[in-house]
């Protein structure tokens, strides 16, 4: 495409050059900034609404509804949530455990899988790549997975059920494979001459050189585990193993969960604002993580996004 359109434009170049490129004042660009600012605000709007509700009193919510700014700022909802913390602390602990173990194990397992697939001298490269790839094209669906986990593996109501199904995500295997394949081949050959084994080459040469790709994959893995409620919905019945997102889901379907538990304590509970406060507590870490490493997130999108997903 480039080759066909270039000559046409080149031919046009000798015509009179115009100044437009260096005009100092550009109303058009200001308008674009205005549109983007409004758009950014619209995109943040639901979040503002949520934070505002979490800082409002229950009576203000029922009088004025959800508003962008709380009528009177109160931390009652947070106090309530943090005063009766056992369930939330447990859920937080489950989520953190699953996220940390899942991310570390996932990145390691996927990198170990991707590395041989990136080596052109590995004779099983093509068939095994296909084995990984095929899982993107076809899947047995929910019913067989459900029966497998609950009936055959019997790992429902364990942390395994929250970790293992997401451990190997084929897109990321291919992302890593592409990155490994781009590393200079001479490094591996040189290490081999020095007598290093495959494991040593992997851990001492490949891994340190691939930090950006590994970090990106780790970020998206962590996001997947942190945000997951689906596996819990399917496989977890034990309240002690409920992750944060699943707890939030249950609260939203069942406001009474909070109300009954609070009646036991004999307090007037801020039901809606407390829900919103828990939600804010759940998205807080993601937001902070995002602000800290947004560059990696965004470069990760362009790395993996171009190939879809």
């Amino acid at each position, binding site marked *: 495409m480039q080759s066909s359109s270039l000559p046409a*434009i080149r031919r046009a170049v000798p015509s009179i050059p115009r100044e437009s490129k260096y005009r100092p004042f550009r109303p058009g660009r200001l308008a674009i900034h205005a549109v983007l600012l409004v*758009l950014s605000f619209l*995109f943040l709007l*639901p979040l503002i609404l949520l934070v505002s509700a979490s800082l409002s009193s229950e009576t203000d919510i029922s009088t004025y509804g959800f508003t962008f700014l709380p009528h009177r700022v109160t931390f009652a909802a947070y106090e309530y949530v943090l005063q009766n913390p056992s369930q939330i602390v447990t859920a937080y602990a489950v989520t953190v455990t699953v996220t940390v173990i899942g991310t570390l194990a996932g990145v390691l397992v996927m990198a*170990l899988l991707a590395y041989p697939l990136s080596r052109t001298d590995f004779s099983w490269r093509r068939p095994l790549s296909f084995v990984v790839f095929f*899982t993107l094209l076809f899947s047995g669906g929910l019913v*067989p997975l459900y029966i497998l986990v609950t009936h055959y593996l019997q790992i429902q109501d364990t942390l395994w059920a929250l970790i293992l199904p997401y451990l190997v995500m084929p897109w990321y295997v291919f992302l890593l494979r592409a990155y490994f394949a781009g590393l200079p081949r001479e490094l591996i050959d040189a290490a081999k001459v020095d007598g290093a084994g495959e494991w040593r080459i992997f851990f001492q040469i490949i891994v340190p050189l691939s930090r950006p790709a590994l970090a990106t994959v780790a970020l998206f893995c962590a996001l997947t585990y942190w945000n997951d409620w689906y596996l819990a919905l399917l496989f977890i019945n034990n309240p002690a193993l409920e992750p944060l997102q699943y707890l939030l889901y249950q609260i939203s379907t069942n406001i009474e969960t909070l109300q009954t538990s609070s009646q036991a304590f004999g307090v007037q509970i801020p039901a809606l604002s407390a829900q919103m406060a828990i939600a804010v507590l759940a998205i807080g870490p993601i937001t902070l993580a995002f602000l800290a490493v947004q560059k990696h997130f965004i470069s990760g999108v362009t790395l993996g996004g171009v190939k*879809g997903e």
Partner: protein
Amino acid sequence: MMMLPGLIVLFVFAYLPMFGIIIAFKDYRAYQGVVGSRWVGLKNFYYLFETDDARRIVVNTLEMNALFIASVLLVALAIALLLKEVQGSSRWLAKFYQSTLFFPYLFSYVIINYFVFALLNRSDGLVNHSLQAVGGSAVSWYQSPQYWPVILTLVTVWKNGGFWSIVYLAGMLAINPELYEAATMDGASKWRQIWHITLPMLKPLIIINVLLSIGRIFYADFGLFYQVTRNAPELYPATDVIDTYVYRTLTSIGDVGMASAAGTFQAVIGFVLVLFSNWLVRRTEPQSAIF
């Protein structure tokens, strides 16, 4: 050796379930196991397609996904074009826009359900309050299926628009700037540049992404349809899709036969569609075919 853990995980959690599609052709009884249960041929499919549900969930899935694909593409391209225009002017603002627009991508559908609920719940929601403030009357959003194709499209665009705009922006920034310089000197307006340079150069990327989405058009985003609608039965006429149907049939009704028939139907048609869309990619942009 290195690959063993990964391959085992894939074998157990991806390949074993694939063989599990035989459940759809069996009268599954838990105590008999998958292998031991009786073969019933196509009976499960027969029952499934006798119901009105089958038509409804297939139509809903296709309709909603088509809406999503088109609107996310349009919005993401529009945002990417805007972002590209301000790339040069203020680095700080350009970064701010990108981050903000990408931000919703980080939220799970559980959280998004909270957002939507804050906007739409009947008594306290912002939308109803605003409606009443201008003299309108409150709407029971969670009981009015006719609005949900629009609501869910807005949610999808909000969640994914920023993500895709960054993908397209990256594509746009990779275009040789000489093309634009030449066009500007030639007096081509911004619109003509977009139409004759940016969009044609992006075509391969757009085609790939759209075809990939079409390949997955038979799969609905379970979280979106389950969480954001609060699984309200009143909304099923518009929002019940294959994935929610399979889940509900399996877990609350416990009809393994019906659920697995719907799931297998989805898996097979989905597979065919993926192959078909790849074949199309291969025909239009051979170098970007996925396999």
